């Protein structure tokens, strides 16, 4: 279920991205940013689709090594976009960024094999959101001077302090994505600054799918499997934002 949701969300994102009439450079930047978002989603879908496996205390090695996850991610990515990151020019910004993102996915999975494969423990806290945050942190370590990917959310939905929105993100969520007039799924691409550096920023809204509501849905404040109280979200509510920053 979660995989289906994310697939629908990416399709919408692509459609919306195609509708944005920006200057060519900006369009390139936007395309790169959206491809990073798509790849992250693809990897997250892999984790999501293997959540029950990961949570199975009876199985030790789950077979989800870095390579396996990268391969399944690429498979999903190609299927959704028709593109192959590995076929891109590895000197181009998009090629470098996507390869760095794939490397981050591989490293995170490899570094957390002990956790994923810990027998006797059902829920291990290795969920798509934690996986995505770790991937993004590793991507930042690799490409931090050129680009950043972050998954944030409305402040009241943020669970980890590292995912707190910055000013632009918070304002965009409050004034645009939560506004009834904002077309559902429409992204925001904007030239802005971050950490005193000029950047092109793309914010992609994500909405709760049915799978998301297991931990973020009703009843509100009921403790979910992670030990955190549910936020009381409903199907289609704004659940998060993928924030891509491409420094100039």
């Amino acid at each position, binding site marked *: 279920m979660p995989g289906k949701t994310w697939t629908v969300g990416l399709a919408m994102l692509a459609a919306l991205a195609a509708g944005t009439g920006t200057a060519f450079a900006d369009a390139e930047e936007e395309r790169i940013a959206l491809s990073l978002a798509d790849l992250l989603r693809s990897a997250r879908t892999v984790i999501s689709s293997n959540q029950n496996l990961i949570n199975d205390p009876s199985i030790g090695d789950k077979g989800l090594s870095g390579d396996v996850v990268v391969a399944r991610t690429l498979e999903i990515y190609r299927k959704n976009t028709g593109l192959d990151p590995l076929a891109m020019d590895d000197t181009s910004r998009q090629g470098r960024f996507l390869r760095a993102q794939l490397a981050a996915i591989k490293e995170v999975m490899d570094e957390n094999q002990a956790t994923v494969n810990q027998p006797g423990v059902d829920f291990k806290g290795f969920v798509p959101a934690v996986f995505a945050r770790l991937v993004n942190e590793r991507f930042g370590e690799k490409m931090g001077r050129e680009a950043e990917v972050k998954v944030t959310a409305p*402040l009241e939905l*943020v*669970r*980890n*302090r*590292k995912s*707190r929105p910055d000013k632009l993100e918070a304002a965009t969520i409050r004034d645009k994505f939560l506004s009834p007039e904002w077309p559902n799924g429409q992204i925001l691409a904007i030239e802005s600054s971050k950490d005193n550096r000029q950047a092109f920023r793309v914010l992609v809204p994500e909405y709760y799918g049915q799978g998301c509501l297991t931990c973020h849905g009703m009843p509100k404040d009921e403790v979910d499997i992670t030990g*955190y*109280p549910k936020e009381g979200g409903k199907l289609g509510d704004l659940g998060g934002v993928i924030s891509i920053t491409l420094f100039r």
Partner: protein
Amino acid sequence: MSRFSILARLVFLSAVLLAVLFATNVFLSRQLARDAQILTEEARVVSIIKAANAANRSFGDLKYWLTDLAVSLLVRSEIKAREAEAALEEQLAGLESYDPETVAFVRQEVDALMEQAIMAVDAYTDDQRVLGNSLMARARTHITAVDERLADLVNRLETDAVSRTNATLRATSRAVDLSRIMVVAAVLVGLGLTILILRSITTPLRKLVGAMTAITEGNLNVPIPEQSHDEIGAMARTLGLFRDSLLERNRLEAEREKADAERRKAQARLVEAIEVITEGFALYDANDRLVICNSRYREMYADVPIAIQPGVAYRDVIAAAAESGVISEARGRIDDWLENRMAIHLHPGEPYEHQRTDGQWLKISERKTDDGGIVGVFTDITDLKTREAQLGELVDSLAQARDQAMQATRTKSQFLANMSHELRTPLNAVIGITEMLQEDAEDLGQDDFIEPLGRIHDAGNHLLHLINQVLDLSKIEAGRLQLHIEEFDLGALIGNVVATAEPLAAKNRNKLTTDCPDDIGMIHADVTQVRQIVLNLLSNACKFTEDGDVTLDVEREKAEPLDRIRVSVRDTGIGMTPGQQEKLFEEFTQADSSTTRRYGGTGLGLAISQRLARLMGGDIEVVSAPGVGSTFTVWIPVEVTAPEDEEEAAEENLKRLANTVTVEGRPGKARSDVVLVVDDDPTVRDLMQRALSRDGFRVVTAESGEEGLRLAKELNPFVITLDVLMPGLDGWGVLQRLQQDPETASIPVVMLTILDDRNRGYALGAADYLIKPFDREQMGRVLTKYRSDAEQCALVVEDDQATREMLRRLLIGDGWKAETAENGRVALDLLKERKPDLILLDLIMPEMDGFEFLAALRDMPEYRNVPVVVVTAADLTEDDHRRLNGGVERILPKAAYDREQLLDELRELIGDMAVRRSPVGEKTG
């Protein structure tokens, strides 16, 4: 205590108990209020302890969540840490008032802790773990400081709370002990007072109950407890009254028994008395049932088949009597008789008589008793009836004798009337002619005749007086003197009598004093007889007193049934002995024979006066002493009652007379023969004076209007000539005033003026209007007309020639023209020649007497208003008065006046007549 009422005592007790209760309540309330304050303070400390503990917990939460945040970096942990911080702040705010220093310290430390902790978390979030650890270590120092201070605060608070709780417990325990003492004291005081008050009530009450029980058992001599001022005292007094009433009742009961015994005795006596009555006696009750009767009553119905016994109905008794044929009247008409008899029986009035068939007569006298019963006395009047029959025969014969006697009396009365007329008429003539002869003798200087003529005159008067008195007494004795009652002014009568008596007083040099109140008013009596009585007393006083005082006192006195007039005549004359006084009012009696010789008189005056006074319901008394004087007092009721028919006739006469006077009368005086000329021009006045004097007129002139008005009133001229244009009051003004003044309104006024304004003159009332210059002939004609109009004409109708002549001379002397007639017939003939202004009429005349003349006169409308004065020597009966029927102006009985008085009366009367006859408003021209 017994001085106060029970209610007051109970109120006092209640008040004391209420006061104790109130004091206890006040004390407890104050104690409770104090405890409540302590508890409130204690509660405050507890709440502060709670707040301190809560702060401790909140700070624990804060520590936990900060630690959790540092490890998990979860936003939720941060939120929880912030919530814990906020809760801590809230608790600190509650503690601030208790220990602001500690609170300030904790706040400072918490702020520092938060700052360090968040910085540490941020370092962890940015993956700066070393820095984070360092910062967290710093933060822990603040945590330790806060923990210590909060623990210290909680310890102090708990110690404080414990000490407060102990203090509260001690105070409460003390209050409870004190309130117990107060309640015990209140109970003791209330109990004591209750016992005292109850004893003050129950002790006398027990005594009172004891006394009541004794009285109830019949011991009325038991002492009544001492009477206090409270309700028990009132009960004791009431019990005393009750005991007294029982004693009184016993006494009355004893008296009643005694009275009953006496009543029974009296009843027995009454029954015995009824039994011995010779007449039948019966008492029937309200239901007409026999109650009691005597044997005589039963005997009367012995032959009737009915038992006469108590309870039998009266109707049954008489029905049985009627049916058995005992009652004569009832034969053949039993039912009618029975109904009639019962009607009389049930509504008793006059005694009822009936005859029985055995010849017995019964007189039944019945009366209703107060309770509706009927008591009857049945008398056998058979003997009485027999005597009555004999008496009836006797009465018939007596009635016959009475008729004969009355006829004789009438004959005697007629004789006396004739005698009075026949005797007094020649005597009046003798006296009148003698007077004329005396006057002639005086005029002719024939002095030798004067003295004998005087004696004839005196003798005639004495004889006339004697005859009058004898006739009066004769009439009184015969009961023929009829009072002519009318209302008159007593003051005027007294004045008239005194004026008459004054010459008599002067003759013996007596001083006559009168004391009569001005408001003595009117009385209702026979004016002639009153006058005669008073004059007689005054005459006597003047006659028997020389050089002394005669006093006349008149008073109105209160008396029953009517007020009365008291007239006293007091003199300082010779007086009388008691023996003389005894015979004083007997006829033909004076004090003694020597008195008659010395003082003259008939000795009839006082007898007549007394009888007249008594006839009017009054009397005369005398108080006298020889040589000191006498006081005669006469009383006359102010309303003398005459026999009914006489009274009515007199009343009728009075009314007619009053009507006549009202229509025609107005006081005034006779017109003079003067012509008054009013003119401011001396030439005209002189000319008029000379010319009119030559024509035989007496002329008086006035030179102004004012003088003319004055002279007109003074002289009463028969005519006035009046100029118009005069200084001051002009002729029109004079004419108006003359017309407005009743005294001058009738004088004809002839205007003599140069102004030709006849209409105005006649409109203002002028009789004639002449234009100057003065025409002597015309003026003479006019004045002659008024002079002849002014001459009053009187007709004297008198059969006695001497009297006729005397009256004629009297009238002429007063300015009248006089015609004479010797009887009514001649007078009627003379009337046709001229209508007289006054008729003086005798009543007893041949051919046509005064009554017939008067009737004929009143039948002729044109003479109906001619005033008629009757001057007669005859004594008028009430019947005579009725025949005159009020149609005459005045009646002057010659017998009541001597000649001079009669002439005075006539002069006054004809003076009035002259004025009345003046043609008011009738003008010539």
